[in-house]
């Protein structure tokens, strides 16, 4: 057993690439972005209205506006790369993107992989897009029933474990929503804010968001883990602080037709300049 242990440990050490935490700041990402004059930001392409493709095929949305503001402030060009929930952290780890603003919920185990810096720029909870015909009102009603979801969402597991739903997790939103329209499941478990945006789009007549919103969870943008407590991480904290303080996020929320959230109003209040008129 001891020999086996030694061998496995040796193998694990051999394979681990990011195990060593940076003790000193080398600011690699920051320096590369500044010298290349271009920042690569990973955003969503299927998450209206935070990150999606418009009719011309361009990536637009609230998070793209945020990315643009970051690039403008740094004085560099912006390049957008579309990421998915299931690969966004890997893209950042591998250096394919410099910054990730991709509707990611801030979770403890994610903080171990990528450099998450506060203050959180948004928050959302879990709800269900479900047909009105089923007259749902509480989560317990989905017990033992098929519920569509999307691979990569942390609340799939919660709904499965807490309420005994059978989660059918698809790779993309489009497939999951199609399965719901095909009546293969009783609902689509997703972020309440995104469901509201869907309902507002008018494509979902006869559907509603019947459950009490659960597990309100702040969203986080992320820089590479090594940059977390260095220039880039500190800079992104500052960006978010200012977005809250001067009401930029509330304006964007308005612009993209997102239902005003109490969280943003509270944060705006909290960071108000005490000398402001």
């Amino acid at each position, binding site marked *: 057993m001891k020999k086996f242990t030694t061998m496995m440990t040796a193998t694990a050490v051999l394979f681990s690439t990011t195990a060593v935490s940076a003790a000193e700041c080398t600011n690699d990402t920051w320096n590369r972005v500044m010298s290349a004059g271009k920042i690569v930001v990973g955003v969503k392409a299927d998450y209206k209205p935070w990150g999606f493709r418009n009719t011309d095929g361009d990536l637009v949305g609230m998070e793209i506006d945020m990315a643009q503001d970051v690039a403008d402030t740094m004085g560099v060009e912006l390049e957008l790369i579309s990421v998915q929930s299931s690969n966004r952290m890997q893209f950042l780890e591998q250096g394919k993107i410099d910054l990730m603003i991709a509707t990611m919920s801030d979770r403890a185990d994610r903080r*171990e*992989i990528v450099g998450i810096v506060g203050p959180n720029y948004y928050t959302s909870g879990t709800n269900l897009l479900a047909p009105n015909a089923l007259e749902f009102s509480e989560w317990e009603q989905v017990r033992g029933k098929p519920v569509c979801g999307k691979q990569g969402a942390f609340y*799939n597991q919660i709904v499965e474990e807490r309420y005994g739903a059978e989660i059918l997790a*698809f790779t993309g939103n489009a497939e999951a929503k199609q399965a719901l329209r095909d009546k293969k499941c*009783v609902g689509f478990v997703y972020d309440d804010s995104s469901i509201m945006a869907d309902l507002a789009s008018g494509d979902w007549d006869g559907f509603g968001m019947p459950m009490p919103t659960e597990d309100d969870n702040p969203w986080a943008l992320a820089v590479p883990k090594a940059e977390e407590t260095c220039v880039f991480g500190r800079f992104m904290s500052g960006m978010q602080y200012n977005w809250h303080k001067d009401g930029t996020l509330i304006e964007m929320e308005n612009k993209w037709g997102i239902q005003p959230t109490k969280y943003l109003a509270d944060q705006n209040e909290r960071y108000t300049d005490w000398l402001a008129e």
Partner: protein
Amino acid sequence: MLDAIQEFFRQIAADHPTWNFIFFYEERQWGKVVSGLWMTIKLSVICVIFSLIIGIVGAAMQGARNRIVRGLVQGYIQFFRNTPPFVQLLFFYFALGAFTPTYSPDGWLEVPIISNVGWAVISLSFFAGAFNVEIFRAGVEAVPDSTQEASEALGFTRLQTFAYVVLPLALRVSIPALNNNLVNLVKTTTQAFVIAVPELLYQAITIWNDHPSAQNPMMLFLFVAYLALVGFLVLGMNKWERSMRIPGYGA
């Protein structure tokens, strides 16, 4: 012993944040791995059996006198062999799935009679079956005409000739190529992931979505699991090949 192993992997996870073998010490995650593995095994075994049946029947139909029957088989092969299995799965489940009869347990839900697992079996079996038809055809063509003529001379019907003379010989020629295709089939079952069939890859990705730190170990586990699965298959096929060997026949 079990505790020691669990403790060992807990320690690795603590020391190396990207090597969290969570499924070795958390029962719920282990349950997912086991159920995924079981689904993959079921899917593989059923698809292998169906694809073999399709292959044999298809090869027999290719030798039919009727031109329409031969054309149908040819069309089937061209369609299933020349389109990506990924697209086939999506098309079958979403497009064709809309036309299958459904029943409704609660007045709204329309549960199709053919589930996503059912469509995966159908789609993957036909996909691998198309290759099997061609493999068996090659085997059939390798059987000398004189042998067939001899069986005809003995008064065998066409079907009897195929079943008792041509197929047993063709099978022996086909085994190596068949081996390759079935190995591919087992690996292709991972694509059932797109229609949410909870096989091994689906469960693995679910685990690493919930626990990002478990991605590397999970991928490593996937490699080992498929090596083992395919290893068993190849071992069985080799054994079969040896047991069917006719001294002096073939190479």
